[in-house]
């Protein structure tokens, strides 16, 4: 079986992996690098559970091949907010609002919302919903998630 060596920059570290050309970034992150915060949901780019940041913008790890990700900066939820440290204020808003039930969509929701918050700190409820449209959630009806993002954006002194 022919494999290619690629060096991926993930959460600030260089990681070397040997991959088949058809191995997606999702499978490398989840299975080869052992990252549970990037999850398989559909392999169609539809659901958002495998959302990661590539060069600062959310992408579907299931629609990228690992061989394509060389020389790009990949950040997963744990790179954005290290679980060994205090939660990001957006995570605190999620906790306060009950914005996760089963939790399977949560990593993707957070990364998508966090990117929007940086770009558009004045986003209203409708813009938040528009931005999150590609992150499907089957438990919450989205409302608590939108509430949490709104709280974060509109918090006094929030370091958005």
């Amino acid at each position: 079986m022919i494999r290619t060596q690629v060096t991926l920059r993930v959460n600030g570290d260089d990681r070397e992996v040997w991959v088949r050309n058809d191995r997606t970034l999702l499978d490398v992150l989840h299975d080869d690098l052992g990252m549970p915060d990037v999850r398989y949901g559909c392999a169609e780019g539809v659901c958002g559970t495998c959302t990661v940041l590539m060069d600062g913008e959310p992408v579907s790890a299931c629609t990228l091949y690992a061989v394509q990700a060389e020389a790009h900066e990949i950040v997963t939820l744990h790179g954005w907010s290290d679980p060994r440290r205090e939660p990001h204020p957006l995570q605190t808003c999620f906790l306060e609002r009950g914005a996760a039930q089963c939790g399977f969509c949560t990593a993707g929701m957070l990364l998508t919302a966090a990117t929007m918050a940086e770009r558009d700190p004045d986003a209203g409820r409708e813009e938040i919903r528009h931005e999150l449209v590609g992150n499907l959630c089957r438990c919450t009806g989205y409302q608590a998630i939108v509430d949490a993002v709104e709280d974060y954006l509109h918090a006094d002194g929030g370091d958005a």
Partner: protein
Amino acid sequence: MTMRQDLPPPADRDPARIFEYQRAETWADAVELLGIWDDEAKILAGGQSLVPMLNLRLTYPGALIDVNPIPAAEPRVEDGRLVIDANTRHRAVAAAPAVRAHAPMLAHAVSFVGNVRVRNRGTFGGSLAHADPTAEIAAVALATGGDIVVLGPGGERTIPVDDFFVTYLTTALEPGDVVTGARLRTAENARWGFHEVVRRYSDFATVSVSALARPTGGRPDLRLVLGGVADRPVVVDRELLGPALDAPGDPVRARESAEAIAASLDPATDLHATAGYRRRLVAVHTRRLLQRVLGDEGGAA
């Protein structure tokens, strides 16, 4: 673990089907690689349609030629045309000042392409070359008018956007050709409207209607494009627009045009709508858009 002698032999196929991965640093590279791989290779642009198809084992290219390393310049106006490089991501198209100024309908419509991740990866050229008959960018490019810029074994040439979309997922590209960009007519002070019907927000359009009316001395030069009603985006025959153009903003005449347009179509029935319902959607949304774009209610819709 059964084995029966009377079975047909296993299908004749190579089990270890893993594509070769080739990076193109320039469009000339891409053309050269396509030549080397003959018909076996596919261009990998944003990958938002192609990679899911590969993930689901629906297609087996011998090689993928990754054109993502090829840089895209900021959209700009050159020689009176809006130039957009093929590798411009949807997000960049939507945000580009030149697009907002000279193709406001495109900037608007691109925000409805897929979701934020699709817009971060998907490219302008990739969408054009994919030629999905429901795609927003194809429809708007057609309504806007201009040329698709193509590089092939024989060098660079242009294909009028009117001639570009041939049928379902098929364009006028020859084997060995790649789309390197487009040179679109600028909107000037055209009035425009774009509407797409989706069963669910952000999905591919069941039907889309794009209208662009350029002012002239007399009747405006109106182009109306329908998506989701045929094997490719369709430019509506000017004659059918006659009644609406005769009495701009008149609801009765707009309806007359819209219903004639709907009746002229032979759309398909699929999971999300029947042919009859698609015709209905065309009639309603075309009428509404014609009234808005031709009427006095403001320029953009």
